[in-house]
């Protein structure tokens, strides 16, 4: 049968209309799909394809507990409870429920907040635990939502606060290792690009999905031993209470590798409550951020330098008149009466400035602190002991201190005579302690470090960093042995009464004049004590500093008891056996 459409028939008209409509559709589709292709693809992608950030978890911070790492800083998921006042109807039920479950986490005026109908977002409670959030969710309150927030949590409270630092509200590390190692700790956020449904559930359809997983931050293990740190903080607090000093700092180091076992500062704070701190000075780790004139502690280094250069021996003598002239200045001793021909050991025991100036003179021509003497002193202090340079400790805010080179006009004989007994230069406790370690450990300088290694991602394997000396032969082993013996003698002579018998404990007092408004003042001195302890070899170095406004604090009276307290405890903690 042959189908024919007759001219002018209704079928023909219908066919023309259908073809016409088809043509319209084709033209329209051509316009939409070909000409407007890119525009509509972009529009569809903006609606359907979502780019979600996968936040990286901040790395944990561990301390040591003997040989075992323990968590010092962890992450905790807490919840912020918010409301949309515009859609809330039963206000009393919401307030009752939130107060009953969230308690102290609730903001004080949530009734007022819920009355702000013109707003769509009001925070009613913060830092809710997961259990609290679950309980509130079960109540199925309309207009209530939760937001997950990750925050740092400190199971040990304020332990090692200045060493740790804190993480601010923007998630940026501030002070301490949190700031210094921020890049390592924060990791790298990942990215998920995917077609999503209306509930933002990622779907596998689509050919442009991207899944770049987050790289969590490193879990770092500090050299800080939490037991030593806790005892050090306790001993420092007790010491300050007994002396009335307002500020104090202690560093405990392992002289065999430069690892910092404890670093304490008072006043202190709790990192979890950093926003409540009134005086930002509490954030500073004075051990590394506050250079000061170290005073007589430096005499141990001056003696070591003289021994190493061969210009003195412990029993070398000089004539002490309690004063010595350097160019147009006369330098006197704080402790007077040891006049006559005395040994260098006696000079160190009594902390005589004249003895140290004599060593400086003997580094030159024996009569003056000439250029040769100054160059030698600078070489030891700057190049070998690292004064005037940052140690490189992994803590934010470290200061290099100041030491004047002999090439400068200010680097004259008077300054270098002062430097021989610890004045005329600004150093941090970390610098002095690290240098002291090198003169009692056989002559090897180690960078002070707070990093022991890293913990694996699964938090089961501790990978310990190897320690490399920065400089060897800072002084010779024989000079080191002599210097150590002299420091031991300096303590034994006057200050060993409360030491545990059978152990080798040496140290040196320091009382530093302070500068206020550019001038030395008489009514304010800082007390320091620098020493070591051990059995057959030095196992720890402790440096203590106490200070207070308008207070004359002395190393022997105010800093030394804190040293002795920590030292005796360290002997038990390290299970050292007495000699003999």
């Amino acid at each position, binding site marked *: 049968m042959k189908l024919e459409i007759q001219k002018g028939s209704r079928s023909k008209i219908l066919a023309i209309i259908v073809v016409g409509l088809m043509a319209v559709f084709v033209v329209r589709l051509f316009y939409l799909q070909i000409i407007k292709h890119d525009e509509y693809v972009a529009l569809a992608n903006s609606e359907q394809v979502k780019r979600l950030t996968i936040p990286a978890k901040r790395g944990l911070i561990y301390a040591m507990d003997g040989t075992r790492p323990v968590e010092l800083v962890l992450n905790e998921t807490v919840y912020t409870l918010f409301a949309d006042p515009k859609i809330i109807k039963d206000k009393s039920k919401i307030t009752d429920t939130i107060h009953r479950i969230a308690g102290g986490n609730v903001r004080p005026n949530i009734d007022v907040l819920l009355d702000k109908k013109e707003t769509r977002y009001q925070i009613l409670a913060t830092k809710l635990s*997961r259990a609290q959030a679950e309980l509130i969710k079960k109540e199925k309150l309309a207009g209530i939502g939760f937001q997950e927030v990750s925050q740092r*949590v400190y*199971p040990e409270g304020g332990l090692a606060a200045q060493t740790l630092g804190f993480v601010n509200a923007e998630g940026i590390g501030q002070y301490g290792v949190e700031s210094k190692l921020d890049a390592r700790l924060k990791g790298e956020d990942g990215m998920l690009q995917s077609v999503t449904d209306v509930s933002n559930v990622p*779907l596998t359809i689509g050919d442009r999905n991207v899944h770049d997983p987050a790289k969590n931050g490193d879990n770092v293990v500090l050299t800080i031993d939490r037991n030593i740190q806790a005892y050090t903080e306790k001993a420092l607090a007790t010491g300050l209470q007994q002396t009335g000093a307002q500020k104090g700092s202690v560093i405990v180091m392992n002289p065999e590798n430069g690892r910092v076992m404890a670093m304490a500062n008072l006043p202190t704070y709790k990192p979890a409550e950093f926003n409540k701190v009134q005086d930002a000075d509490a954030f500073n780790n004075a051990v590394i951020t506050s250079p000061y004139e170290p005073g007589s502690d430096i005499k141990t280094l001056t003696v070591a330098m003289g021994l190493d250069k061969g210009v003195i021996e412990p029993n070398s003598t000089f004539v002490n008149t309690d004063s010595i002239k350097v160019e147009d200045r006369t330098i006197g001793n704080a402790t007077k009466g040891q006049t006559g021909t005395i040994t260098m050991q006696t000079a160190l025991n009594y902390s005589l400035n004249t003895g140290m100036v004599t060593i400086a003179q003997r580094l030159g021509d024996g009569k003056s602190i000439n250029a040769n003497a100054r160059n030698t002193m600078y070489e030891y202090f700057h190049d070998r002991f690292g004064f005037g340079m940052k140690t490189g400790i992994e803590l934010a805010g470290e200061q290099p201190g100041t030491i004047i080179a002999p090439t400068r006009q200010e680097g004259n004989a008077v300054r270098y005579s002062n430097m021989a007994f610890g004045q005329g230069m600004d150093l941090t406790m970390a610098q002095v302690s690290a240098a002291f370690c090198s003169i009692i450990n056989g002559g090897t300088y180690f960078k002070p470090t707070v990093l022991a290694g890293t913990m694996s991602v699964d938090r089961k394997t501790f990978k310990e960093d190897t320690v490399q000396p920065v400089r060897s032969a800072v002084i010779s082993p024989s000079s080191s042995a002599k210097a150590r013996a002299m420091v031991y003698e300096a303590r034994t002579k006057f200050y060993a009464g409360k030491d545990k018998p059978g152990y080798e404990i040496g140290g040196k007092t320091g009382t530093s004049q302070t500068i206020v408004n550019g001038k030395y003042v008489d009514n304010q001195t800082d007390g320091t004590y620098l020493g070591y302890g051990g059995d057959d070899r030095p196992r720890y170095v402790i440096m203590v500093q106490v200070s207070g406004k308008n207070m004359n604090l002395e190393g022997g009276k105010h800093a030394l008891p804190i040293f002795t307290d920590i030292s005796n405890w360290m002997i038990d903690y390290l299970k050292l056996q007495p000699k003999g």
Partner: protein
Amino acid sequence: MSYQRTQQFSSRRQQGWNRNQNTTRFVSAIKLGPVAHTVIVALMITVLGLIYLTQATRATSYDYQAKEIDSQIAELTTKKGDLEVENARLTALEAVQNSSVAREMTQPASTEYAR
């Protein structure tokens, strides 16, 4: 009557293929016009589309399952983290020092060293 033998012998069956190949032809009584063809093609496209949609929907349902599992993993990870924090708090120095065990401990009167 005599028969002359041929050089090659082919049976009737062997010869039948060629000989009878055009003897019959099947012609269907049903004829498909252009409309029927269009409908069949449309139906085939519809069936294929449905198969595609079924598969795509099944893949999407897996996405929801995966999302559900991800949520469970996230929740369990959070719970694990909470327990770790609680563990760290309970084993913190202050907690240990204030424990009943620690309170019962006394200072040793003397210490002997094995040599």
